Protein backbone atom coordinates (compact mmCIF):
# COMPACT_ATOMS: atom_id res chain seq x y z
CA UNK A 1 0.00 0.00 0.00
CA UNK A 2 1.24 3.42 -0.90
CA UNK A 3 3.09 5.26 1.79
CA UNK A 4 1.59 8.50 2.90
CA UNK A 5 -1.80 7.94 1.35
CA UNK A 6 -2.96 5.44 3.93
CA UNK A 7 -4.17 6.55 7.34
CA UNK A 8 -2.51 5.06 10.42
CA UNK A 9 -5.56 2.86 10.90
CA UNK A 10 -4.36 0.72 8.09
CA UNK A 11 -1.61 -0.62 10.26
CA UNK A 12 -4.17 -2.37 12.43
CA UNK A 13 -4.51 -4.93 9.67
CA UNK A 14 -0.86 -5.52 9.25
CA UNK A 15 -0.67 -8.35 11.75
CA UNK A 16 -3.86 -10.12 10.78
CA UNK A 17 -3.67 -13.28 8.67
CA UNK A 18 -4.37 -12.87 4.94
CA UNK A 19 -8.13 -13.06 4.64
CA UNK A 20 -8.31 -15.33 1.59
CA UNK A 21 -5.54 -17.77 2.19
CA UNK A 22 -7.99 -20.63 1.82
CA UNK A 23 -9.74 -19.27 -1.23
CA UNK A 24 -6.55 -18.51 -3.06
CA UNK A 25 -5.27 -21.99 -2.37
CA UNK A 26 -8.40 -23.44 -3.93
CA UNK A 27 -8.02 -21.18 -6.91
CA UNK A 28 -4.46 -22.28 -7.47
CA UNK A 29 -5.60 -25.88 -7.49
CA UNK A 30 -8.00 -25.04 -10.29
CA UNK A 31 -5.20 -23.41 -12.14
CA UNK A 32 -2.66 -26.17 -12.38
CA UNK A 33 -2.79 -25.83 -16.14
CA UNK A 34 -0.44 -23.23 -17.58
CA UNK A 35 -1.85 -19.73 -17.39
CA UNK A 36 -2.91 -18.10 -20.64
CA UNK A 37 -1.24 -14.85 -19.73
CA UNK A 38 2.07 -14.50 -17.99
CA UNK A 39 0.77 -11.79 -15.71
CA UNK A 40 -1.73 -14.19 -14.19
CA UNK A 41 0.93 -16.22 -12.45
CA UNK A 42 0.95 -13.91 -9.46
CA UNK A 43 -2.83 -14.07 -9.03
CA UNK A 44 -3.21 -10.35 -9.59
CA UNK A 45 -5.73 -9.61 -12.35
CA UNK A 46 -5.84 -5.85 -12.16
CA UNK A 47 -3.84 -3.28 -10.34
CA UNK A 48 -3.57 0.43 -9.68
CA UNK A 49 -0.27 1.78 -8.39
CA UNK A 50 -0.09 5.26 -6.96
CA UNK A 51 -2.82 6.41 -9.33
CA UNK A 52 -3.94 10.03 -9.22
CA UNK A 53 -6.58 11.65 -11.36
CA UNK A 54 -7.95 15.17 -11.36
CA UNK A 55 -10.99 16.55 -13.12
CA UNK A 56 -10.36 20.27 -13.22
CA UNK A 57 -10.03 21.33 -9.61
CA UNK A 58 -11.55 18.15 -8.23
CA UNK A 59 -9.16 15.47 -7.14
CA UNK A 60 -10.91 12.19 -7.97
CA UNK A 61 -8.07 9.84 -7.03
CA UNK A 62 -5.11 10.66 -4.87
CA UNK A 63 -2.29 8.13 -5.05
CA UNK A 64 -4.53 5.09 -4.94
CA UNK A 65 -3.15 1.56 -4.75
CA UNK A 66 -5.54 -1.24 -5.53
CA UNK A 67 -5.10 -4.86 -6.39
CA UNK A 68 -7.68 -7.32 -7.62
CA UNK A 69 -6.72 -10.94 -7.06
CA UNK A 70 -7.97 -13.95 -8.93
CA UNK A 71 -11.18 -15.44 -7.60
CA UNK A 72 -11.96 -12.80 -4.97
CA UNK A 73 -14.91 -10.50 -4.61
CA UNK A 74 -13.64 -7.06 -3.86
CA UNK A 75 -16.14 -4.43 -2.80
CA UNK A 76 -15.31 -0.80 -3.35
CA UNK A 77 -17.22 1.24 -0.83
CA UNK A 78 -17.44 4.94 -0.55
CA UNK A 79 -19.78 7.88 -0.68
CA UNK A 80 -20.56 9.73 -3.91
CA UNK A 81 -17.46 11.30 -5.34
CA UNK A 82 -15.16 8.94 -3.45
CA UNK A 83 -13.53 7.91 -6.71
CA UNK A 84 -14.98 4.41 -7.11
CA UNK A 85 -16.11 4.81 -10.70
CA UNK A 86 -12.95 6.71 -11.59
CA UNK A 87 -10.87 3.85 -10.18
CA UNK A 88 -12.78 1.32 -12.30
CA UNK A 89 -12.56 3.53 -15.38
CA UNK A 90 -8.80 3.75 -15.04
CA UNK A 91 -8.50 -0.01 -14.52
CA UNK A 92 -10.48 -0.48 -17.73
CA UNK A 93 -8.30 2.08 -19.56
CA UNK A 94 -11.32 4.32 -20.19
CA UNK A 95 -9.44 7.11 -18.47
CA UNK A 96 -5.76 7.83 -18.36
CA UNK A 97 -4.30 8.46 -14.90
CA UNK A 98 -2.45 11.73 -14.33
CA UNK A 99 0.12 9.83 -12.30
CA UNK A 100 0.80 6.23 -11.41
CA UNK A 101 0.08 3.11 -13.42
CA UNK A 102 -2.83 0.85 -14.12
CA UNK A 103 -2.69 -2.72 -15.30
CA UNK A 104 -5.38 -5.11 -16.47
CA UNK A 105 -4.50 -8.73 -17.19
CA UNK A 106 -6.60 -9.33 -20.31
CA UNK A 107 -9.40 -7.24 -21.68
CA UNK A 108 -10.87 -10.20 -23.58
CA UNK A 109 -11.59 -11.93 -20.30
CA UNK A 110 -13.16 -8.93 -18.62
CA UNK A 111 -16.87 -8.28 -18.20
CA UNK A 112 -18.34 -4.90 -17.36
CA UNK A 113 -21.59 -3.52 -16.04
CA UNK A 114 -21.48 0.25 -15.99
CA UNK A 115 -23.59 2.68 -14.06
CA UNK A 116 -25.09 4.89 -16.69
CA UNK A 117 -25.51 3.59 -20.16
CA UNK A 118 -28.38 3.79 -22.61
CA UNK A 119 -28.59 0.81 -24.93
CA UNK A 120 -30.44 0.64 -28.24
CA UNK A 121 -34.14 0.55 -27.28
CA UNK A 122 -35.06 -1.24 -30.51
CA UNK A 123 -33.00 -4.35 -29.83
CA UNK A 124 -34.41 -7.21 -27.81
CA UNK A 125 -32.78 -8.50 -24.65
CA UNK A 126 -31.52 -11.66 -26.35
CA UNK A 127 -30.02 -9.60 -29.17
CA UNK A 128 -28.14 -7.30 -26.82
CA UNK A 129 -26.64 -10.32 -25.06
CA UNK A 130 -25.83 -12.01 -28.38
CA UNK A 131 -24.00 -8.87 -29.53
CA UNK A 132 -21.85 -8.58 -26.41
CA UNK A 133 -21.18 -12.34 -26.42
CA UNK A 134 -19.73 -12.00 -29.93
CA UNK A 135 -16.85 -9.93 -28.49
CA UNK A 136 -15.54 -12.85 -26.42
CA UNK A 137 -13.50 -15.90 -27.42
CA UNK A 138 -15.59 -18.50 -25.54
CA UNK A 139 -18.88 -16.95 -24.44
CA UNK A 140 -22.01 -18.46 -22.94
CA UNK A 141 -24.94 -18.81 -25.30
CA UNK A 142 -27.47 -16.00 -24.85
CA UNK A 143 -29.91 -18.62 -23.54
CA UNK A 144 -27.45 -19.77 -20.88
CA UNK A 145 -26.60 -16.20 -19.86
CA UNK A 146 -30.27 -15.36 -19.55
CA UNK A 147 -30.96 -18.46 -17.51
CA UNK A 148 -28.13 -17.62 -15.13
CA UNK A 149 -29.40 -14.10 -14.63
CA UNK A 150 -33.11 -14.98 -14.55
CA UNK A 151 -33.81 -12.86 -17.61
CA UNK A 152 -35.19 -15.64 -19.83
CA UNK A 153 -38.75 -14.25 -19.64
CA UNK A 154 -37.43 -10.95 -21.03
CA UNK A 155 -35.64 -12.55 -24.00
CA UNK A 156 -37.85 -11.15 -26.73
CA UNK A 157 -38.76 -7.85 -25.11
CA UNK A 158 -37.38 -4.70 -26.74
CA UNK A 159 -34.90 -3.09 -24.38
CA UNK A 160 -36.71 0.24 -24.57
CA UNK A 161 -39.87 -1.34 -23.13
CA UNK A 162 -38.16 -2.69 -19.99
CA UNK A 163 -38.44 -1.23 -16.50
CA UNK A 164 -35.36 0.29 -14.90
CA UNK A 165 -34.72 -2.85 -12.88
CA UNK A 166 -35.14 -5.12 -15.91
CA UNK A 167 -32.63 -2.98 -17.79
CA UNK A 168 -30.10 -3.47 -15.00
CA UNK A 169 -30.73 -7.23 -15.10
CA UNK A 170 -30.16 -7.23 -18.85
CA UNK A 171 -26.92 -5.29 -18.40
CA UNK A 172 -25.87 -7.84 -15.80
CA UNK A 173 -26.53 -10.66 -18.27
CA UNK A 174 -24.46 -8.76 -20.84
CA UNK A 175 -21.64 -8.39 -18.33
CA UNK A 176 -21.39 -12.11 -17.57
CA UNK A 177 -22.14 -13.60 -21.01
CA UNK A 178 -18.47 -13.60 -22.04
CA UNK A 179 -17.53 -15.93 -19.16
CA UNK A 180 -15.11 -13.30 -17.85
CA UNK A 181 -12.35 -14.13 -15.39
CA UNK A 182 -12.71 -10.62 -14.02
CA UNK A 183 -16.01 -8.83 -13.74
CA UNK A 184 -16.58 -5.16 -12.93
CA UNK A 185 -19.98 -4.35 -11.50
CA UNK A 186 -20.56 -0.65 -10.91
CA UNK A 187 -23.56 -0.27 -8.57
CA UNK A 188 -25.20 -3.38 -10.01
CA UNK A 189 -28.27 -3.44 -7.80
CA UNK A 190 -29.20 0.25 -7.94
CA UNK A 191 -32.87 0.35 -8.83
CA UNK A 192 -33.51 -3.37 -8.35
CA UNK A 193 -36.33 -4.66 -6.18
CA UNK A 194 -35.52 -6.92 -3.24
CA UNK A 195 -36.18 -10.14 -5.12
CA UNK A 196 -34.11 -9.21 -8.17
CA UNK A 197 -31.31 -8.05 -5.94
CA UNK A 198 -31.34 -11.39 -4.13
CA UNK A 199 -31.22 -13.22 -7.46
CA UNK A 200 -28.33 -11.08 -8.62
CA UNK A 201 -26.48 -11.77 -5.39
CA UNK A 202 -27.02 -15.52 -5.86
CA UNK A 203 -25.58 -15.32 -9.37
CA UNK A 204 -22.64 -13.28 -8.12
CA UNK A 205 -21.92 -15.91 -5.47
CA UNK A 206 -22.12 -18.66 -8.10
CA UNK A 207 -19.68 -16.78 -10.31
CA UNK A 208 -17.22 -16.34 -7.46
CA UNK A 209 -17.49 -20.04 -6.62
CA UNK A 210 -16.72 -20.73 -10.27
CA UNK A 211 -13.49 -18.73 -9.99
CA UNK A 212 -14.54 -15.33 -11.36
CA UNK A 213 -12.96 -12.34 -9.67
CA UNK A 214 -15.43 -9.52 -9.15
CA UNK A 215 -14.95 -5.86 -8.39
CA UNK A 216 -18.17 -4.41 -7.11
CA UNK A 217 -18.91 -0.84 -6.21
CA UNK A 218 -21.94 -0.25 -4.13
CA UNK A 219 -23.84 2.14 -1.96
CA UNK A 220 -25.71 -0.74 -0.42
CA UNK A 221 -23.55 -1.57 2.51
CA UNK A 222 -25.38 -4.78 3.17
CA UNK A 223 -24.38 -5.78 -0.34
CA UNK A 224 -20.73 -5.64 0.58
CA UNK A 225 -21.48 -7.45 3.85
CA UNK A 226 -23.41 -10.14 2.00
CA UNK A 227 -20.93 -10.77 -0.79
CA UNK A 228 -17.46 -9.40 -0.33
CA UNK A 229 -14.30 -11.29 0.56
CA UNK A 230 -12.50 -8.02 0.86
CA UNK A 231 -13.70 -4.46 1.25
CA UNK A 232 -11.84 -1.36 0.23
CA UNK A 233 -13.18 1.88 1.62
CA UNK A 234 -12.49 4.96 -0.47
CA UNK A 235 -13.11 8.55 0.42
CA UNK A 236 -12.01 11.60 -1.53
CA UNK A 237 -9.95 9.44 -3.82
CA UNK A 238 -7.92 7.88 -1.06
CA UNK A 239 -7.88 4.42 0.38
CA UNK A 240 -9.27 4.60 3.90
CA UNK A 241 -9.12 0.96 4.84
CA UNK A 242 -9.01 -2.44 3.31
CA UNK A 243 -9.71 -5.84 4.75
CA UNK A 244 -12.48 -8.35 5.30
CA UNK A 245 -15.90 -7.09 6.30
CA UNK A 246 -15.11 -8.20 9.85
CA UNK A 247 -11.80 -6.39 9.85
CA UNK A 248 -13.34 -3.20 8.56
CA UNK A 249 -15.93 -3.41 11.28
CA UNK A 250 -13.32 -4.10 13.90
CA UNK A 251 -11.58 -0.89 12.91
CA UNK A 252 -14.47 0.83 14.50
CA UNK A 253 -15.09 -0.60 17.91
CA UNK A 254 -18.50 0.98 18.34
CA UNK A 255 -21.46 -1.11 19.33
CA UNK A 256 -25.13 -0.37 19.44
CA UNK A 257 -26.89 -1.06 22.74
CA UNK A 258 -30.64 -0.98 23.00
CA UNK A 259 -32.85 -1.58 26.05
CA UNK A 260 -35.91 -0.46 27.99
CA UNK A 261 -35.02 1.62 30.99
CA UNK A 262 -36.28 4.42 33.18
CA UNK A 263 -32.90 6.11 33.26
CA UNK A 264 -32.75 9.61 31.87
CA UNK A 265 -31.17 10.08 28.48
CA UNK A 266 -29.07 13.02 29.68
CA UNK A 267 -27.56 10.98 32.47
CA UNK A 268 -26.40 8.19 30.16
CA UNK A 269 -25.14 10.66 27.61
CA UNK A 270 -22.74 12.03 30.18
CA UNK A 271 -21.07 8.63 30.76
CA UNK A 272 -17.64 7.97 29.38
CA UNK A 273 -17.51 5.83 26.24
CA UNK A 274 -21.01 6.80 25.15
CA UNK A 275 -21.11 8.36 21.69
CA UNK A 276 -24.80 9.05 21.34
CA UNK A 277 -28.09 8.29 23.07
CA UNK A 278 -31.58 8.43 21.63
CA UNK A 279 -34.90 7.36 23.09
CA UNK A 280 -37.71 6.13 20.88
CA UNK A 281 -41.02 5.23 22.58
CA UNK A 282 -39.34 4.12 25.77
CA UNK A 283 -36.64 2.20 23.95
CA UNK A 284 -33.19 3.55 24.49
CA UNK A 285 -30.52 3.39 21.75
CA UNK A 286 -26.94 3.91 22.83
CA UNK A 287 -23.95 3.93 20.50
CA UNK A 288 -20.86 3.27 22.55
CA UNK A 289 -17.22 2.71 21.85
CA UNK A 290 -16.82 0.79 25.12
CA UNK A 291 -19.97 -1.31 25.15
CA UNK A 292 -19.11 -3.66 28.00
CA UNK A 293 -18.45 -0.85 30.41
CA UNK A 294 -21.64 0.97 29.46
CA UNK A 295 -23.71 -2.22 29.84
CA UNK A 296 -22.26 -2.82 33.32
CA UNK A 297 -23.19 0.70 34.35
CA UNK A 298 -26.66 0.44 32.85
CA UNK A 299 -27.41 -2.78 34.72
CA UNK A 300 -26.03 -1.38 37.95
CA UNK A 301 -28.05 1.82 37.67
CA UNK A 302 -31.39 0.26 36.71
CA UNK A 303 -32.42 -3.06 38.21
CA UNK A 304 -35.61 -2.99 36.11
CA UNK A 305 -33.73 -2.70 32.83
CA UNK A 306 -35.22 -5.03 30.19
CA UNK A 307 -34.86 -6.21 26.62
CA UNK A 308 -31.15 -5.59 26.50
CA UNK A 309 -29.53 -6.07 23.10
CA UNK A 310 -25.99 -5.37 21.99
CA UNK A 311 -25.09 -5.31 18.29
CA UNK A 312 -21.84 -4.83 16.56
CA UNK A 313 -21.99 -1.80 14.41
CA UNK A 314 -22.98 -2.64 10.83
CA UNK A 315 -20.74 -1.76 7.97
CA UNK A 316 -22.88 1.33 7.61
CA UNK A 317 -21.69 2.70 10.94
CA UNK A 318 -18.10 1.64 10.32
CA UNK A 319 -18.23 3.24 6.94
CA UNK A 320 -19.71 6.50 8.16
CA UNK A 321 -17.07 6.80 10.81
CA UNK A 322 -14.22 6.14 8.41
CA UNK A 323 -15.41 8.59 5.83
CA UNK A 324 -16.33 11.27 8.36
CA UNK A 325 -12.78 11.20 9.48
CA UNK A 326 -11.64 12.33 6.07
CA UNK A 327 -14.30 15.00 5.94
CA UNK A 328 -13.25 16.51 9.25
Amino acid at each position, binding site marked *: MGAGSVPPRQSQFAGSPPPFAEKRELYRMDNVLPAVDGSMHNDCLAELRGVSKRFGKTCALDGLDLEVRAGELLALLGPNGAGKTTAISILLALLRPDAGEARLFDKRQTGVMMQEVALAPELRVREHID*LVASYYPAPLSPAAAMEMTHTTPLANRPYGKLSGGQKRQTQFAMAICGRPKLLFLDEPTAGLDVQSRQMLWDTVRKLVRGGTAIVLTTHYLEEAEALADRVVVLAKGRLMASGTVGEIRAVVSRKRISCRTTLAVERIASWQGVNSVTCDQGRLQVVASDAEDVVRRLLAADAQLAELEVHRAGLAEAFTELTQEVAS
Partner: protein
Amino acid sequence: MKPYLTEAKYESLRMLRAPSFAIPFLTIPVLVYLLMGVVFFGEALRHDSKAAINVFAGLTVFGMMGPGMFGFGVAVAGEREQGLLKLKRALPAPPAAYFLAKMCMAMLFNTIIMATMIGAALFAAHLPLAFPQMAALALVNIVGALPFCAIGLFIGVWVSGSAAPGFVNLVYLPMMWLSGLFIPLPKSLQGAAPIWPAYHLLQLSLGALGQPAAGAAWVHAGVLAAVTLLLSAVAVRRLARVG
Protein backbone atom coordinates in the same frame (compact mmCIF):
# COMPACT_ATOMS: atom_id res chain seq x y z
CA MET B 1 -14.76 -11.62 -38.00
CA LYS B 2 -17.76 -12.61 -35.88
CA PRO B 3 -17.98 -9.45 -33.76
CA TYR B 4 -17.88 -7.28 -36.90
CA LEU B 5 -20.70 -9.20 -38.55
CA THR B 6 -22.80 -9.35 -35.39
CA GLU B 7 -22.34 -5.64 -34.75
CA ALA B 8 -23.31 -4.81 -38.35
CA LYS B 9 -26.33 -7.10 -38.18
CA TYR B 10 -27.71 -5.55 -35.02
CA GLU B 11 -26.92 -1.99 -36.03
CA SER B 12 -28.87 -2.49 -39.25
CA LEU B 13 -31.67 -4.30 -37.49
CA ARG B 14 -32.15 -1.62 -34.89
CA MET B 15 -32.12 1.20 -37.42
CA LEU B 16 -34.64 -0.64 -39.60
CA ARG B 17 -36.80 -1.00 -36.47
CA ALA B 18 -36.51 2.67 -35.54
CA PRO B 19 -39.46 4.31 -37.30
CA SER B 20 -38.11 7.83 -36.86
CA PHE B 21 -35.05 6.84 -38.85
CA ALA B 22 -36.22 4.16 -41.25
CA ILE B 23 -39.47 5.70 -42.45
CA PRO B 24 -38.19 9.11 -43.57
CA PHE B 25 -34.91 7.95 -45.07
CA LEU B 26 -36.34 4.94 -46.86
CA THR B 27 -39.43 6.66 -48.24
CA ILE B 28 -38.69 10.35 -48.82
CA PRO B 29 -36.19 9.93 -51.69
CA VAL B 30 -38.50 7.75 -53.76
CA LEU B 31 -41.54 9.89 -52.92
CA VAL B 32 -39.75 13.08 -53.93
CA TYR B 33 -38.67 11.37 -57.14
CA LEU B 34 -42.21 10.24 -57.91
CA LEU B 35 -43.48 13.76 -57.29
CA MET B 36 -40.88 15.54 -59.36
CA GLY B 37 -40.14 12.95 -61.99
CA VAL B 38 -43.68 11.69 -62.56
CA VAL B 39 -46.45 13.80 -61.02
CA PHE B 40 -45.19 17.36 -61.51
CA PHE B 41 -42.89 17.20 -64.49
CA GLY B 42 -43.59 13.74 -65.93
CA GLU B 43 -45.12 15.14 -69.06
CA ALA B 44 -42.26 17.51 -69.85
CA LEU B 45 -39.57 14.94 -68.93
CA ARG B 46 -41.08 12.34 -71.26
CA HIS B 47 -39.87 14.43 -74.17
CA ASP B 48 -36.50 15.28 -72.69
CA SER B 49 -34.76 12.11 -71.63
CA LYS B 50 -31.56 13.97 -70.77
CA ALA B 51 -33.39 16.14 -68.25
CA ALA B 52 -35.29 13.09 -66.97
CA ILE B 53 -32.03 11.27 -66.28
CA ASN B 54 -30.55 14.36 -64.61
CA VAL B 55 -33.51 14.60 -62.25
CA PHE B 56 -33.23 10.91 -61.45
CA ALA B 57 -29.46 11.06 -60.85
CA GLY B 58 -29.80 14.13 -58.64
CA LEU B 59 -32.48 12.60 -56.48
CA THR B 60 -30.62 9.31 -56.04
CA VAL B 61 -27.66 11.29 -54.71
CA PHE B 62 -30.03 13.15 -52.39
CA GLY B 63 -31.31 9.78 -51.16
CA MET B 64 -27.76 8.65 -50.33
CA MET B 65 -27.10 11.61 -48.03
CA GLY B 66 -29.58 10.89 -45.22
CA PRO B 67 -28.62 7.49 -43.78
CA GLY B 68 -24.93 8.35 -43.60
CA MET B 69 -25.23 11.88 -42.27
CA PHE B 70 -27.99 11.24 -39.76
CA GLY B 71 -27.15 7.59 -39.01
CA PHE B 72 -23.67 8.70 -37.99
CA GLY B 73 -24.20 12.30 -36.92
CA VAL B 74 -27.20 12.02 -34.67
CA ALA B 75 -26.54 8.45 -33.52
CA VAL B 76 -22.86 8.94 -32.63
CA ALA B 77 -23.59 12.14 -30.72
CA GLY B 78 -26.36 10.46 -28.75
CA GLU B 79 -24.51 7.23 -28.09
CA ARG B 80 -21.39 9.07 -27.04
CA GLU B 81 -23.43 11.09 -24.58
CA GLN B 82 -25.34 8.09 -23.25
CA GLY B 83 -22.23 6.10 -22.42
CA LEU B 84 -22.65 3.44 -25.11
CA LEU B 85 -19.29 4.22 -26.70
CA LYS B 86 -17.63 4.04 -23.32
CA LEU B 87 -19.22 0.66 -22.67
CA LYS B 88 -17.96 -0.62 -26.03
CA ARG B 89 -14.49 0.58 -25.14
CA ALA B 90 -14.70 -1.13 -21.76
CA LEU B 91 -15.83 -4.37 -23.38
CA PRO B 92 -13.48 -6.30 -25.64
CA ALA B 93 -15.32 -5.04 -28.74
CA PRO B 94 -12.94 -4.48 -31.68
CA PRO B 95 -12.59 -0.68 -31.87
CA ALA B 96 -13.48 -0.44 -35.55
CA ALA B 97 -16.58 -2.66 -35.30
CA TYR B 98 -18.80 0.17 -34.14
CA PHE B 99 -17.92 2.39 -37.11
CA LEU B 100 -17.94 -0.39 -39.69
CA ALA B 101 -21.35 -1.50 -38.43
CA LYS B 102 -22.76 1.96 -38.91
CA MET B 103 -21.19 2.09 -42.36
CA CYS B 104 -22.78 -1.23 -43.30
CA MET B 105 -26.10 0.04 -41.96
CA ALA B 106 -25.86 3.16 -44.15
CA MET B 107 -24.92 1.04 -47.16
CA LEU B 108 -27.83 -1.31 -46.53
CA PHE B 109 -30.24 1.61 -46.31
CA ASN B 110 -28.73 3.09 -49.46
CA THR B 111 -29.10 -0.23 -51.27
CA ILE B 112 -32.78 -0.32 -50.38
CA ILE B 113 -33.18 3.32 -51.46
CA MET B 114 -31.41 2.65 -54.76
CA ALA B 115 -33.58 -0.41 -55.41
CA THR B 116 -36.83 1.49 -54.82
CA MET B 117 -35.69 4.47 -56.88
CA ILE B 118 -34.54 2.35 -59.79
CA GLY B 119 -37.88 0.56 -59.57
CA ALA B 120 -39.71 3.89 -59.70
CA ALA B 121 -37.55 5.07 -62.60
CA LEU B 122 -38.25 1.95 -64.63
CA PHE B 123 -41.89 1.36 -63.89
CA ALA B 124 -43.32 4.79 -63.06
CA ALA B 125 -41.15 7.22 -65.00
CA HIS B 126 -40.27 4.71 -67.76
CA LEU B 127 -36.68 5.87 -68.02
CA PRO B 128 -34.70 4.11 -70.74
CA LEU B 129 -32.04 2.66 -68.42
CA ALA B 130 -29.92 -0.34 -69.34
CA PHE B 131 -28.91 -2.85 -66.68
CA PRO B 132 -25.19 -1.97 -66.71
CA GLN B 133 -26.08 1.69 -66.20
CA MET B 134 -28.31 0.89 -63.25
CA ALA B 135 -25.67 -1.36 -61.72
CA ALA B 136 -22.98 1.28 -62.22
CA LEU B 137 -25.18 3.99 -60.70
CA ALA B 138 -26.03 1.86 -57.68
CA LEU B 139 -22.38 1.00 -57.09
CA VAL B 140 -21.17 4.58 -57.49
CA ASN B 141 -23.86 5.93 -55.19
CA ILE B 142 -23.59 3.33 -52.45
CA VAL B 143 -19.81 3.56 -52.22
CA GLY B 144 -19.89 7.28 -52.92
CA ALA B 145 -22.04 7.83 -49.83
CA LEU B 146 -19.05 7.21 -47.54
CA PRO B 147 -18.16 10.92 -47.31
CA PHE B 148 -21.67 11.54 -45.97
CA CYS B 149 -20.96 9.00 -43.23
CA ALA B 150 -17.72 10.83 -42.49
CA ILE B 151 -19.46 14.22 -42.32
CA GLY B 152 -22.02 12.75 -39.92
CA LEU B 153 -19.30 11.19 -37.79
CA PHE B 154 -17.35 14.42 -37.73
CA ILE B 155 -20.38 16.34 -36.48
CA GLY B 156 -21.36 13.55 -34.08
CA VAL B 157 -18.09 13.61 -32.18
CA TRP B 158 -18.22 17.37 -31.58
CA VAL B 159 -21.78 18.20 -30.64
CA SER B 160 -24.25 16.97 -28.04
CA GLY B 161 -27.03 14.52 -28.81
CA SER B 162 -29.74 17.14 -28.69
CA ALA B 163 -27.79 19.60 -30.87
CA ALA B 164 -26.79 17.00 -33.46
CA PRO B 165 -29.95 17.04 -35.65
CA GLY B 166 -29.66 20.82 -35.96
CA PHE B 167 -26.01 20.75 -36.90
CA VAL B 168 -26.46 17.89 -39.35
CA ASN B 169 -29.29 19.80 -41.01
CA LEU B 170 -27.06 22.83 -41.19
CA VAL B 171 -24.90 20.89 -43.62
CA TYR B 172 -27.55 18.61 -45.09
CA LEU B 173 -29.97 21.29 -46.31
CA PRO B 174 -27.50 23.67 -47.98
CA MET B 175 -25.64 20.74 -49.56
CA MET B 176 -28.90 19.36 -50.93
CA TRP B 177 -29.76 22.66 -52.65
CA LEU B 178 -26.34 24.08 -53.50
CA SER B 179 -24.82 21.04 -55.20
CA GLY B 180 -27.41 21.11 -57.98
CA LEU B 181 -29.18 17.87 -57.06
CA PHE B 182 -32.70 19.20 -57.61
CA ILE B 183 -32.44 21.99 -60.12
CA PRO B 184 -29.66 23.28 -62.36
CA LEU B 185 -27.75 25.93 -60.47
CA PRO B 186 -27.66 29.54 -61.65
CA LYS B 187 -24.27 30.69 -62.92
CA SER B 188 -23.61 32.70 -59.76
CA LEU B 189 -23.77 29.54 -57.62
CA GLN B 190 -22.10 27.09 -59.97
CA GLY B 191 -18.61 28.15 -58.96
CA ALA B 192 -19.21 27.27 -55.31
CA ALA B 193 -20.87 23.91 -55.95
CA PRO B 194 -17.61 21.89 -55.86
CA ILE B 195 -17.22 22.60 -52.15
CA TRP B 196 -20.02 20.07 -51.52
CA PRO B 197 -19.25 16.34 -51.72
CA ALA B 198 -22.73 15.78 -53.14
CA TYR B 199 -21.74 17.77 -56.22
CA HIS B 200 -18.86 15.41 -56.93
CA LEU B 201 -21.00 12.35 -56.38
CA LEU B 202 -23.61 13.78 -58.74
CA GLN B 203 -21.01 14.13 -61.49
CA LEU B 204 -19.95 10.50 -60.97
CA SER B 205 -23.60 9.38 -61.05
CA LEU B 206 -24.23 11.26 -64.27
CA GLY B 207 -21.14 9.63 -65.71
CA ALA B 208 -22.41 6.20 -64.65
CA LEU B 209 -25.64 6.90 -66.53
CA GLY B 210 -23.73 7.95 -69.66
CA GLN B 211 -24.54 11.62 -69.26
CA PRO B 212 -22.06 14.45 -69.76
CA ALA B 213 -20.54 15.45 -66.43
CA ALA B 214 -18.37 18.35 -65.40
CA GLY B 215 -14.72 17.65 -64.61
CA ALA B 216 -12.72 14.44 -64.56
CA ALA B 217 -14.05 11.37 -62.76
CA TRP B 218 -10.78 10.76 -60.93
CA VAL B 219 -10.89 14.27 -59.47
CA HIS B 220 -14.41 13.70 -58.13
CA ALA B 221 -13.48 10.31 -56.72
CA GLY B 222 -10.34 11.82 -55.23
CA VAL B 223 -12.27 14.62 -53.51
CA LEU B 224 -14.81 12.14 -52.08
CA ALA B 225 -12.05 9.86 -50.80
CA ALA B 226 -10.13 12.77 -49.31
CA VAL B 227 -13.19 14.13 -47.50
CA THR B 228 -13.94 10.68 -46.14
CA LEU B 229 -10.42 10.00 -44.91
CA LEU B 230 -9.75 13.43 -43.51
CA LEU B 231 -13.00 13.88 -41.60
CA SER B 232 -13.06 10.34 -40.21
CA ALA B 233 -9.42 10.55 -39.17
CA VAL B 234 -10.02 13.78 -37.26
CA ALA B 235 -13.21 12.37 -35.73
CA VAL B 236 -11.69 9.06 -34.65
CA ARG B 237 -8.72 10.88 -33.14
CA ARG B 238 -11.01 13.10 -31.15
CA LEU B 239 -13.08 10.14 -30.00
CA ALA B 240 -9.97 8.34 -28.80
CA ARG B 241 -8.80 11.42 -26.93
CA VAL B 242 -11.99 12.89 -25.55
CA GLY B 243 -14.49 10.03 -25.80
